[in-house]
């Protein structure tokens, strides 16, 4: 059973987000990370800290010449 995240509600469906392993694709590479997802519509929530932290780091690593 996926962990329900209290206080994080999907604006479209009105249900609580759950933690789920999501696959990211960038520059022909794929990697997985657990992020909040709406169990109904599947919309993924990327927190600012993740976008500006780990995700930005990985992007820079992959964006070679």
């Amino acid at each position, binding site marked *: 059973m996926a962990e329900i995240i209290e206080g994080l509600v999907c604006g479209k469906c009105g249900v609580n987000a759950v933690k789920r392993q999501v696959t990211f694709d960038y520059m022909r590479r794929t990697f997985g990370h657990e992020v909040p997802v709406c169990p109904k519509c599947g919309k993924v929530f990327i927190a600012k800290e993740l976008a500006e932290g780990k995700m930005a780091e990985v992007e820079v690593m992959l*964006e070679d010449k």
Partner: protein
Amino acid sequence: MSKACPENAQFFSCPEEVRLEKLNESLKRASTLPFWREKLEGLLPLENLASLSALPFSSEEDIIACGEKLTAVSATDIKRVVSLRTSGTSGRVKRIFFTENDIKLTRIFFSEGMAWLCGEGDKAAILMPGVSPDGLFDILSKSLLDIGVNVLPPVSSVSEAADLLSKENPDVIIGLPWYVRLLSVCLPELSPRYVLLSADYVPRSLKKQISENWECTVVEHYGMTETGYGFAVEYPKSGIMYPRNNDFCFEIINTDTFLPCKVGEEGEIVISSLGREAMPLVRYRTGDLGSFDYKNGFPVLIYAKGKKAFFPARAYEEALAPLSFLADFRFTDEGEMEALILGAEKPEYSDAVLSALSRAGLKLPEKIIFCNFHEEGKLFFASKRSM
């Protein structure tokens, strides 16, 4: 089919009125960005290309500090980002953004420029990085395929490159100066027609050495990631670099007065983009030195010799490149020279290095440490300096 030459190259022969129109469009696009809004206020549109010199400069520091704030399109229109870690301070990243069209313009330039060297049925080896989508290798190989050239697969080490070249004996070899020089020393039996050197300063002595080792014509390319990898390419045997006049305006400025240099005068290369969508460049100071002239009424680069800060190192490269036992070299902070050599050390090597440096009037190293290239299995590429 028309002959592939500078006069027929779409990237080069672009009339001034067309360039001015494109420049004004590009500046207008840039002026919508907060970074440029105030700086360009009241200065646009330009009446002629010469009035570009009235605009403020931009620099690598601006790109590092502002990053995506210098992009003039929405994030969804960005097709490719290149992130470059700048030397020195750790963690500082320079990110350059491209749209699909920006990449297409580079591809056209590469195709037209490479058509001076090769064509249908020829075989080309690209010994450059960037195999990822829309990376340097990727774009260049697509450009070569566009003109019917067969591209050899990418390699990830010198030994892989040597094996591939021995097996395929390509018509054209594209790579970094010291890397290709080493291969020309180790594999003299190859017979490429042309060698294109790029991404670093090319010592004259090194160019001559490759040309003699393989009895081929060696040409240079000057460019940087900021210009979409490519900017100007030498037409064989002309010694002139033909720039992408269709996509950029370049100026040569005096590094003390910041005023435009005259024909033939050496100064810093400053670039403004014309058709660039993702990240318009406005008077971007490259830090590289060069000079300009005109050919058939269009501006050409006479030479580009890299950043002033690296000039002492350039003199060492120039002096040491002709020593064919030397694979690469670097200096330690203690003033010692580490020399990567091919095969076992011989007593005369030390004297050869010292006399080459003395002849060039250069400071001699405190000590020379010889290391065997085959045992080390790597190159220092001390000579690979940002250009």
